[in-house]
């Protein structure tokens, strides 16, 4: 479902398949009303989430990134969230240095039954991101965008050659 331009921001969620994805499902089954900005990517475990996923998302224009997994000691793979906790806590220090507000990133623990908690997490986090507004964009949209979107290609015009 495309982003509702102007109303929604790009918020990406990396959810662990065993707990938080289940929690989000429970919230959905429970018909809890929550903001719709979040786009969820399912991962086997928070331990599988490479902090580079999060940085790549921000550099590609995500306004906010949320990571959610099993509570410590509930991890399906027993250690995944322990490693993730350290990595993501370290990653938090990198964001401000490159000019991204650290509040644009959060990680938390939501189990499969905590539909209500998931709704609160999504609401609070989306409010937090809307308060910050869109992430700063690079001046140059990039070679692909300039060549294809018909904008003035700094190195020449573009015209369709063959049908």
């Amino acid at each position, binding site marked *: 479902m495309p982003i509702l331009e102007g109303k929604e921001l790009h918020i990406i969620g990396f959810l662990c398949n065993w707990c938080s994805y289940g929690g989000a499902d429970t919230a959905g089954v429970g018909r809890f009303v929550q903001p719709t900005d979040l786009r969820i990517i399912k991962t086997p475990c928070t331990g599988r989430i490479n*902090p*580079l996923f999060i*940085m*790549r998302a921000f*550099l*590609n224009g995500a306004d906010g990134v949320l990571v959610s997994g099993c509570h*410590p*000691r509930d991890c399906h793979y027993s*250690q995944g969230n*322990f*490693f993730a*906790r*350290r*990595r993501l*806590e*370290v*990653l*938090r*220090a*990198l964001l*401000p*240095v*490159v*000019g*991204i*507000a650290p509040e644009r990133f*959060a*990680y*938390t*623990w939501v189990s499969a039954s905590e539909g209500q*908690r998931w709704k*609160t*997490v999504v609401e*609070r986090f989306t409010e937090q991101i809307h308060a910050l507004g869109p992430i*700063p964009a*690079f*001046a*140059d949209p*990039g*070679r*692909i965008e300039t060549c294809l979107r018909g904008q003035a290609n700094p190195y020449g015009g573009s015209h369709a050659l063959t049908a």
Partner: protein
Amino acid sequence: MPSRLEELKDGIRKALPDLDMVLAWGQGPDSLRRKPLFIVSQADIDKIVWDPCCSPNLAGYLTGLRGKKVGIVVKGCDCRSVVELIQEKLVDRAEVTIFGLHCEGTIDPAKVRATLPGDARGAFGDCRVSDGRIRFASDTSLQNLAASDAFYDKCLHCSDPNAGFCDYFIGERGTPPPVSTAPPDALERLEAMGLEERFRFWEQAMDRCVRCYACRNACPLCVCKDHCLAQSRDPHWVDQTDHPREKLMFQVIHALHTAGRCVECGECERACPMGLPVMALKRALNRQINELFDYRAGLDPEAIPPLFTFREEEDRIGEKKWS
């Protein structure tokens, strides 16, 4: 009392027979630069040089010399690199013979050229450091610079100038470089800016990056530089367009791949032809790791880097409250 250089040469002369090679510094293309010297014969020993221009960290060559008995001369920061490589078993302690030195600080040729008047870009005479001043002859005048105008940033707040872990310590241990007022370094300058301004700073800096990957190839920890994530097509982390976003993504990759491992030896910044402050990202992560886990890389060969392990109860990481 023989000079430290003589003492170093004697130490190496004695050790060389049962080593395949000793890594030290030799004369570089100009008097402000030294280049790695691979000593394999007694004749090479006379080419050894030791002065504040010996900035290259020789530890990076160790991982390419596995299986050989190698001697290496190290400053304080270089020594931390060797310890980190031993911690991660990327280098076998038994294969390495370490000659440690006290370092008085190392000169950054780019910083010296920048402080000199425009036309003094010619050659420089030999340089000497004494009581916080650096003296050398440039082809137009005699130069006399304060240490803070010529040393690498890392040397201006160096905490352990003596090689802490070595087989032979050459000469006396000493104090860190005498720096009266160290100008703010890249990380401090960045943190004095607002967020948007920092973002624009990196956008400008990365525009200058020519993507030569000297920062990666100079890093002693980058043992997988020949098949690096940044040049992989699958997964396609970084595309080949010359855009600040992609080049900044590589700096993020380098910072996160050395998180909890980087010893701030400064090689990435020293190697960068465009003089970009790429170590600022790693120093920010090191500060966070020090605060979270009370840990600094490269001090204890037995220590396990923090991100290689975990604790069920982390004493300094709490849970985010949402209500």
